[in-house]
């Protein structure tokens, strides 16, 4: 028996010296297999309170309300943020809300274009550019641009992304500063991001703000959520999956919506299908952390 325990102990100590490439391989497989065989594992998604708050806040908006959607992410964070961008746009268009997109990251310009294009190509909504949405171009400056939008949007933007003068776009009439919007939704992966929108615009001008952000930003954004400065938050891929599911159920529950095309079926978003891979990888990470700690503890005891 003692020999068995010693063998297990030695095995666990040796496990701590495992070549990290085996860990990479296992993590890779734990992500790859659920993605290739999605039917094998189906883990249910439970809606968290913060995602529900975001949904409720956007659901309160009325036809014709103006929402500024800020794109602050790029190709590297697209898997986390993009599904929530599409879900948020679907939710807004289903309510007849006027959407104004603004990229504050260079790549945000492309992400905004892709998100809008995805919604337009789905043909689910009867939407037209300059009638239901306007895409503003990228401007360098980060928080200075946010401040500019807060005080005088026209001093920074005179044209949309297609070089059409804003004064010639009917839905831009009466839109001069952040307080002319009924809501701001921020999709961020860093700086400038939701903290800058709180500090430089929404707090001072009392405009409601919600955010969807990368997982890594959540712990820094939570104090703003707790204080009500940000109304709910979509936290990374799980947040995106939860929001997708809520929007999916909501769109399917609508009976005769004049903004939606009845001949097109609502399809669930991409984040939902990714959550099994995410969960399996996390379980594996937890196992590695526990084994690593046991190995380290045993090694330290042996050294003593």
């Amino acid at each position, binding site marked *: 028996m003692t020999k068995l325990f010693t063998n297990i102990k030695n095995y666990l100590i040796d496990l701590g010296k495992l*070549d990290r*490439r085996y860990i*990479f391989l296992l*993590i*890779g497989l734990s*992500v*790859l297999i659920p*993605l*290739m065989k999605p039917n094998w594992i189906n883990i249910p998604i439970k809606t968290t309170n913060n995602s529900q708050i975001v949904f409720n806040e956007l659901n309160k908006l009325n036809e014709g309300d103006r929402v500024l959607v800020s794109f602050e992410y790029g190709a*590297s*964070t*697209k*898997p*986390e943020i993009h599904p929530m961008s599409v879900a948020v746009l679907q939710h807004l268009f289903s309510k007849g809300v006027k959407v104004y997109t603004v990229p504050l990251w*260079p*790549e945000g*310009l492309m992400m905004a274009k892709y998100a809008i294009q995805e919604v337009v190509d789905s043909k689910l909504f009867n939407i037209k550019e300059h009638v239901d949405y306007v895409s503003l*171009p*990228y*401007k*360098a*400056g980060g*928080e200075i641009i946010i*401040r500019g939008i807060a005080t005088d949007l026209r001093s*920074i933007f*005179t*044209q949309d992304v297609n070089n059409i*003068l*804003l*004064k010639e776009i009917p839905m831009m009439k009466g839109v001069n500063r952040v307080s002319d919007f009924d809501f701001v939704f921020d999709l961020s992966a860093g700086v400038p991001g939701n903290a800058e929108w*709180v*500090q*430089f615009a929404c*707090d*001072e001008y009392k405009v409601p703000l919600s955010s969807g952000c*990368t*997982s*890594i*930003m*959540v*712990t820094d954004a939570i*104090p*703003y959520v*707790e*204080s*009500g*400065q940000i109304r709910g938050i979509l*936290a*990374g*891929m*799980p947040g995106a999956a939860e929001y997708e599911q809520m929007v999916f159920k909501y769109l399917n529950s609508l009976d005769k919506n004049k903004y939606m095309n009845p001949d097109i079926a609502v399809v669930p978003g*991409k984040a939902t299908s*990714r959550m099994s*891979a*995410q969960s399996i*990888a*996390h379980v594996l*990470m937890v196992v590695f952390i526990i084994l690593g700690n046991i190995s380290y503890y045993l090694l330290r005891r042996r050294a003593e």
Partner: protein
Amino acid sequence: MYELIGVWCVVLLTLSIFSYLYGDNPFYKAAEHIFVGVSAGYVFTITFWDTIWPNLFGRLFPKYVGAGFSFDITYIFPLILGVFMLFRLSKKYDWLSRISIAYIVGMMAGLKFYVFLNSNLLTQIKSSTVNLSGTYFSIFNDLIILVGVISGLVYFFFSKEHTGALGKISRIGVYFLMIKFGASFGFAVMGRISLLIGRFEELIEFSKPEYYYSTPVTLLIMIMIIGYWAYKDNTKPLEK
């Protein structure tokens, strides 16, 4: 056709970056340099044509640029400050760039001071108070936040040695900080796995016949080249 070329480039660059897991190699190096070059080029181009050209030159030469702005001579100052910034490249006149940097630092410090005071300090102090009119659960939550804020602040108070009561409060602050770091680490892992999922999804998608089996073909070619390269260079093992 162009889409297909794009797909093969995506697969090649993704697998080149992943090849670093095996060890440093020419594929990884090439992908890294392409990424840095393309990013710098993209940011420069988009910043010039979307911001400097319409917002600066559009005000100095409104008829020529046609961005919808009217003539404003005061924009000569940002132009001069911008040119000064380029003198960083000159050893003789690099002092001029300090004027531009001083302007940016001063302006941002002033702006940040106000917004930080308003949004981060005053509002956060207000939200750290205990609302006694709430439910038992919310009061309990508020108390945890209050204890966490105070003990966390005490931990960063260095004017007195952390002994006695101060040491105990500071210790509680450490526990709160450790919970915060643990949560941050968990979220960081989640974020990184999400990125991996995004890459894998595209690699799986591009394995299909309509893309001429881009992923398996590229992977096979890369393995053969890296294998041959490692074999030829076997006296110098790959850096792990």
